[in-house]
């Protein structure tokens, strides 16, 4: 540890009833179920691990190729491949418990009933601290339009999951909407304990020689530095209109990116694509953040959250 450090800033935050030792979490789908990262990251030093999205039945995912790098980002069409909720509880949770990790389970379904069933199964599982619901996936009963694309459907999912579990529920919003505030308010009204945003932005990329899409799925979700300004803008808009804690996600590569999200009002952040590039990204960001707070004389992260001076420099 750094000897010059005079005090350790308070990093603990409470996200809708979940006490986190610090506000750095892993974004779903970018950290697996934690196993691959144990050589690089002490899982119990993370604010929380948000595991790869879990569905009722195992899913095989999409045909390859599934990823492609684009300008300052990457497209992915993994297709929500996962082991299914039963195998997750049996095979993955014991490992996470052994590592004393704070686990938040990201869940999704093709129907509202599926969301409820997954939530019920996770309700009494030792070590599961909260659920994060991914509403970016297609609603099979409504012609495949994402649950999160319409405020009424988004709130229906949030309400359904809330009634199926006693765990705190975070709702993760899709940015592929016209009015993010409207969606955020509707899930808050439905009882969401916290809101995380953003999921990936739908995009595509074409191989001009072969004239084929780079992804077998044709479209994919854009993540990485390219989406940070959009994520930041959406967090800034949402925090003004909801009372529940907001978690910033999108393109956070280092502590400076994370700081931007805290300043606009995020109470915690999730690190995604950065984990692929530097497997210690979460720890680097955590340490960078602590150093920044010490150097700025801030002894509690809360004193930084939502301190954006919108009037700017001139006034």
């Amino acid at each position, binding site marked *: 540890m750094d000897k010059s450090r005079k005090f350790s800033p308070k990093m603990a935050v409470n996200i809708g009833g979940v006490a986190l030792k610090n506000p750095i979490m892993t974004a779903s*789908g*970018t*950290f*697996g179920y934690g196993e*691959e*990262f144990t*050589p*690089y*990251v*002490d899982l119990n030093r993370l604010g929380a691990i948000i595991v*790869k999205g879990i569905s009722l039945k195992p899913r*095989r*995912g999409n*045909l*390859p*190729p*599934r*990823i*492609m*790098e684009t*300008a*300052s*980002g*990457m497209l*992915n069409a*993994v297709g929500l*491949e996962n082991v299914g909720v039963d195998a997750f509880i049996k095979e993955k949770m014991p490992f996470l418990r052994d590592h004393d990790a704070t686990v938040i389970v990201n869940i999704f379904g093709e129907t509202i009933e599926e969301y409820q069933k997954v939530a019920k199964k996770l309700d009494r599982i030792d070590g599961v601290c909260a659920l994060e619901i991914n509403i970016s996936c297609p609603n099979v009963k409504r012609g495949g339009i994402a649950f999160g694309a319409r405020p009424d459907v988004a709130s229906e999912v949030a309400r359904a999951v809330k009634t199926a579990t006693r765990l705190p529920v975070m709702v993760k919003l899709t940015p592929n909407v016209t009015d993010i505030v409207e969606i955020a308010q509707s899930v808050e009204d439905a009882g969401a304990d916290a809101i995380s945003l953003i999921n990936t932005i739908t995009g595509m990329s074409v191989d001009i020689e072969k004239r084929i899409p780079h992804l077998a799925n044709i479209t994919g979700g854009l993540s*990485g*530095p390219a989406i940070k300004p959009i994520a930041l803008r959406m967090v800034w808009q949402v925090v003004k209109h909801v009372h529940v804690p907001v978690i910033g996600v999108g393109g956070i590569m280092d502590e400076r990116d994370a700081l931007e999200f805290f300043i606009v009002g995020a109470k915690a952040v999730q690190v995604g*694509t950065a*984990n*692929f*590039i*530097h*497997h*210690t990204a979460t*720890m680097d960001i955590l340490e960078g953040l602590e150093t920044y707070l010490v150097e700025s004389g801030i002894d509690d992260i809360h004193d930084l959250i939502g301190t954006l001076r919108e009037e700017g420099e001139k006034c």
Partner: protein
Amino acid sequence: MARKRTTVSAEIIQNREIAPLHFLMTLRLPPTFHPPYPGQFVMIRAENRQPPLLGRPFSVYDFYHDKKALALELLYRVVGQGTRIFSLLPQGEKLEILGPLGRGFKIDGRRRKLILIAGGMGVAPLSFLASYVRRRGAGSSFEIVSYVGARTASYLAGLDKLETMCSKTFISTDDGSLGYHGKVIELFEDHLKTCHGDMPAVYTCGPYPMIRQLADILRGCSGFCQVSMEERMACGIGACLGCAIPIRNKDNRQLYKRVCKDGPVFDIRDLAWR
């Protein structure tokens, strides 16, 4: 718990165009770098620079002790943005290296005849396999025969070195500019017909259509054939599920495996074809 750095910093000793668009890069590694095994790969990125954002996977082409340091060689072709940027990096520049990664080739000591079938850049891991076998104690008792194919003669980068380690090398080019005019698998198939009795150990790496052709002709053969597969990667450690390829399991059910973690080397009979 002591935290491992994920990447090590490596200095470029040389980065030379040995054939049009084909580069040989030699890197100096810190002594802590774990010795790689044939078929394993590394992910590389330019240090403190972007693009590319994500690391790019490359097979280990060679690895040895050079004076007091460790040296890693990569053989690569410029195909897109990342490889173009790598090709422009001068000597002395630093790279971030992650690895060695993945599961390499299995060497069965009882099979003394090795057949290597390389298409394009597939020569890189196979050449390292040949060096590795030759450098081992009983290395000279192995017979290594290689089949190397490329689009055109000038694309046969790495051939010179491989040839020195093989008792026979057969060459094919798509345009007939050198060796057999056609596909390398056709060449191998002709020789396979004359091959009786025990099947040798076959190792291969190359483009998808080539691997598929090989899988077809080996169907029903008793021998063992391992293939090093390629897929685009993001994390290199099995977390993103980006590098999936379809595999058939024992119950003949199709599932996805990760090239980075479950591979890159697979048994050719386990590959599932659409």
